[in-house]
């Protein structure tokens, strides 16, 4: 369920790193908790953020939820498909529902993120 080659945050984001670029989305657990997603407010390309900054917003029917960037860096690509099809986050949270790509400014930050095993333990504790 939770890909082994991803890293995870306690706030339920995932990041998959290829070279020095990370693809970021929200986890399957997060999309289930949120319910029907009807809008994703994407960041702007070239904006720079520090790890933990609020960078995007995922809106379900009921509420707006902030997305925090798992690592520091510059936004290099956003998933424009989400503008017309935000439900991709529900349908394929770890794939087509990715939200943005970030160019990492400090790869060592990845070490602080959760492994798939640690993340699965975390959500078990949260009651899934």
């Amino acid at each position, binding site marked *: 369920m939770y890909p082994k080659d991803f890293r995870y945050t306690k706030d339920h984001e995932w990041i998959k790193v290829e070279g020095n670029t990370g693809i970021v989305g929200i986890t399957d657990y997060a999309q289930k908790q949120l*319910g*029907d997603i*009807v*809008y994703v*407010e994407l960041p702007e390309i070239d904006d720079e953020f520090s790890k933990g900054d609020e960078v995007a*917003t995922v*809106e*379900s*029917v*009921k*509420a*707006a939820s902030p997305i925090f960037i798992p690592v520091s860096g510059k936004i290099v690509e956003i998933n424009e498909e989400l*503008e017309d099809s935000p439900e991709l986050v529900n349908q394929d949270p770890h794939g087509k529902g990715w939200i943005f790509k970030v160019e990492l400014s400090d790869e060592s930050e990845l070490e602080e993120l959760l492994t798939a095993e640690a993340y699965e333990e975390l959500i078990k504790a949260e009651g899934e």
Partner: protein
Amino acid sequence: MKKTPLYDEHIKLGAKMVEFAGFNMPVQYKGVIEEHMTVRTKVGMFDVSHMGEFRVKGNQAFDFVQYLTTNDVAKLSIKQVQYSAFPTEKGTVVDDLLVYKVNDNEYLLVVNAANIEKDFAHLSKFVDKFDVSLTNESDDTAQMAIQGPKAEDTMFKIFGDVVREMKYYWFDYVEFEGETCLLSRTGYTGEDGFEIYCKPELASKIWNKILDAGEEFGIEPCGLGARDTLRLEARMNLYGNDMDETTTVLEAGLGWICKLDKGDFLGRDVLLKQKEEGLKRKLYGFEMIDKGIPRHGYPVFHNGEEVGVVTSGSYAPYLKKNIGLAYLPIELAKAGNEIEIGIRKKRAKAITVKTPFYKRPKK
């Protein structure tokens, strides 16, 4: 946290449960959008047992209800229902409610779950001034709402002709396993539909009987999430969001249930004065032009100045638009004015529109 008599049914159906007004309630089963569309196109059922029920009895039951609500109770026939509000002495809103006329000396008042204690305390202050008794039957009453174009067909299968004959905002009594239940043609979704009140012990049986009867019409259990989006599309105010004790009945757009010519009632002087002088602000609908979803509490701007606040806002699943209600200065509270909603760091364009946003097609 309180549970309704249908708690076990919700768990069996895999509902996602949340705390609401002190009750553990289902927010959704399969998903808000699907449940919303089921009510608009087929039939959905809600557990609304958390709602409060008060009974007013006595020689002055009419006078009591007439003095403490804004609508004209004299217009009610026996077995008729009326949407109304409890005003404060300042003309603001204690709660909104349904008034059921049982007979000339007896009324059933159905109030919001979050306000049961407050409303009961408020009404109790006036009990000594009238020859009435007031009882809180909330814990002894289960309630379900069956809503949608197939609600009549579903309920007809269980209760027969009384269902087809019942007019909108009327009620009658029906038998279920030898017990009497109250059935009304009312609801909070903008659709045709029914609400049934019964003893808590009967709730699960009735719930399952209705699910079985509605199966051929595509019935689904629906949660509070869909209830909120449905009522907003139909522009029904939500107490605590769209009105409270800081907003008057008239400002909340409830002038139509505020019968100033019916004789004296609590807060009438203030409301009459407000009507004569003209409102300064009013709750009004808007639709987003730019992307973004308006939410409760977001600021509203006009010509760069903050002029109001969003009270309810959501993605509207049937209309596929982002809509909301906001308190606006009276000069802006008419259709066609461009406003901006402060959504996080941005200001997104919106336009004021007539409500209801959604009106069900006539049969």
